[in-house]
């Protein structure tokens, strides 16, 4: 995995489109979560048509005033199309500018990925398969993370990660960087695994045994705490290392905040779906009388937010890992740098 030293791009259109893609993908994932939460996945029984209509020609007023599940599902489809269009535009923009070849490959991969993801979503409807729904739900956040990396590749910072750092800061940071980087990568992997576990709990087939469900729920909770520990450590290390640039420390801080929020959302999800666990609600009068209301606004919002924050955690941890990786790569390149005269000799030698 070499690192680009070539300018990512000269034009600002690739950057604009890649940022647009990130900012559209997140709501897409959010609405996608809502599709599952409200179980609207099969509300529109056909694909790519909507109730026999061409997807784009499905009357706006029917969509707007129709049943909620149809609204959500059709909306998810339209948003997906929007991301696809932006992806096409991004590809064109990148190809039109003198961009680094890796970026060119990446935007094509993104375009293929978003198309496949759309097809997967469509297949899920056509075959009405939970398994595909789950796969679709797991590739969504992965694509989101990829979109974030793409956006990073078009950034100024990617070209010159040491820009904001003094020589002293670089010297301070260097010995610890690889450890922090490793931790961040491990955390990203773990966050994604956790997301897959969560998706499994969410898409558990109705015929599954209670013991199967219980096992997955158990691991989802276990990994939640392991992950919280990981992120706390990551935050602590980056927090202590003041010489690290803000664009490393800030995402770590976000991760720490979000994982706390996510723990709270996880518990809230349980309570809004299944009431208090093991009858602990009976411990106090204020909690004893709680009734779960299926598909209430608060329930849907809590559950969907839990899912969306999960994707955000994946996105930010991948962002942080990639940045750390880029930084350490640039630093080791710096330290391996041969004296100028030698370089000349070396080059003339070849």
């Amino acid at each position, binding site marked *: *995995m070499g690192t680009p030293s070539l300018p990512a791009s000269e034009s600002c259109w690739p950057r604009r489109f890649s940022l647009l893609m990130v900012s559209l993908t997140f709501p897409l994932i959010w609405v996608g979560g809502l599709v599952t939460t409200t179980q609207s996945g099969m509300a529109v029984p056909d694909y790519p048509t909507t109730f026999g209509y061409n997807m784009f020609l499905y009357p706006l007023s029917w969509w707007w005033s129709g049943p909620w599940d149809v609204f959500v599902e059709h909306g998810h489809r339209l948003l997906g199309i929007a991301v696809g269009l932006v992806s096409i535009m991004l590809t064109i923009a990148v190809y039109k500018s003198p961009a680094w070849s890796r970026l060119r490959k990446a935007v094509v991969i993104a375009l293929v990925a978003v198309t496949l993801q759309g097809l997967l979503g469509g297949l899920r409807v056509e075959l009405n398969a939970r398994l595909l729904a789950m796969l679709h739900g797991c590739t969504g956040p992965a694509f989101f993370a990829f979109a974030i990396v793409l956006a990073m590749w078009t950034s100024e910072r990617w070209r010159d990660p040491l820009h904001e750092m003094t020589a002293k800061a670089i010297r301070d940071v260097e010995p610890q960087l690889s450890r922090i980087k490793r931790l961040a990568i491990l955390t990203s992997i773990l966050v994604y695994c956790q997301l897959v576990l969560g998706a499994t709990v969410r898409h558990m087939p109705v015929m599954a045994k209670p013991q199967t469900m219980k096992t997955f729920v158990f691991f989802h909770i276990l990994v939640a705490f392991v992950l919280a520990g990981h992120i706390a450590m990551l935050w602590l290390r980056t927090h202590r290392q003041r010489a690290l640039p803000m664009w490393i420390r800030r995402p770590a801080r976000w991760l720490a905040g979000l994982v706390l929020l996510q723990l709270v959302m996880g518990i809230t999800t349980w309570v809004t779906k299944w009431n208090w666990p093991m009858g602990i609600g009976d411990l106090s009068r204020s909690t004893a009388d709680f009734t779960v209301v299926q598909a209430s606004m608060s329930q849907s919002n809590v559950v969907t937010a839990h899912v969306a924050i999960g994707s955000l955690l994946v996105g930010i941890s991948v962002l942080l890992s990639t940045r750390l990786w880029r930084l350490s790569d640039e630093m080791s390149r710096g330290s391996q740098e041969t004296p100028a005269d030698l370089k000349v000799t070396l080059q003339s030698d070849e």
Partner: protein
Amino acid sequence: MMFKQITKTKNNEIVLRQQMQSMESATRTTSSALWCGLLLVVLAVAGCDGSAYFQFNHAYLDRQVIDINSGRPDDAQIEISDEQEENVSEILEAAFGTPDAPKIPGVEGAAALLDQEFLDMAAGPVGRLEDGSPRGLYRQHCAHCHGVTGDGMGPTSEFLKPYPRDYRKGVFKFKHTVLGAKPRKEDLRQVLMEGIPGTAMPSFRVYDSQELDAIIDYVIYLAIRGDVERQLEATILQKTADEGGNPLLADTSANASAEDREGLLDAKDIITDVVASWTEANDSLMPTTEPPANWQSDENIARGREIFLGTGGCVACHGKTGLGDGNPDLFDTWTEELVGAKGQSTSARLEFYDEHFAGTGTLKPRNQRPRNLRLGSFRGGRRPIDIYSRISQGIAGTEMPGGKAKGDDAWAVVAYVLSLSEEVISKPSNDLDFQRERN
């Protein structure tokens, strides 16, 4: 000298390249490990992603076999063969269809009780027809807890407390009919609209009224089917115990003789009776009296307390203070079938479960605690008439008895029970609190 340095740099480059390569392969390994992990999870889930089917009621059958065998000599132990189980399932399927294609059994009264269109809306996989009408409502909203079979053993069931209802006994707690009777559709609708506070059972009040009607019919359908299944199992057991060997209930093949098919008529009788018990629910409304004037007056509450502490016998379970600490060893009807006989300690009764049922896929029995009446949370509804139903009729499926207080007495107890949650108490288990003047 210069040459040496150059080779050193070249070496450095090689080392660097090697490092990069190893890093690359490390990343590749982790990512492939990740995908393998994901694939495993997917496969594990896919393993059970097959179509839905009704699960056979093994637990009930096994329990009956244990009970029958315990009263028989060693050389006369009975055993139910797979073929016999198959036979019961076939008869059931012929009468009730499958989770994807439910049928209303062709017996008297069934078509008046259940609506085929409703069953179709509630059954099958989740989705909508081209005309926009919903399908698979039960699997969408209920099966995760109550199970596709209605056995209360859906995927989510195990970590809920209390466990979701097993419909197959045909017993429901919260209703306004007399104790032994089935609930009316209105009673089920009330449960669906209000949910059951303090439990995982949600309120479905945001849903379309017609969708709820469809689900209610489907719940009754599952309850009837489950009840019939139990009775068919009991019948085949009886037959096995009487005749020896492994007799079938009836030959279900098309070319069987009239005599071999006779068992089907018995099955039909069973179904007819179960359907009739549901049809009768509407005529089995509990007798109610109007609450007397000033029924919530202090005097009446005091009278209610006397009954609660005395002739009502409530203290035996709910405790003197109403905290529900009177009897921690109760089991409900559903778990009674999995634990040892009454009259032993809870741990002895659970040992029976461990010996015979642990690992068979049943949910581990838990004691049912009498309600803490000071929490002000009433699972069957908080309206006075709801609590009146519980107290005058008892709660079906639980040890909570009815008939201890009638008419005005029952209303006095209702008043007392309602007043309990309004009492402010700092140390609830304290007898002083219990005697303290109410303001």
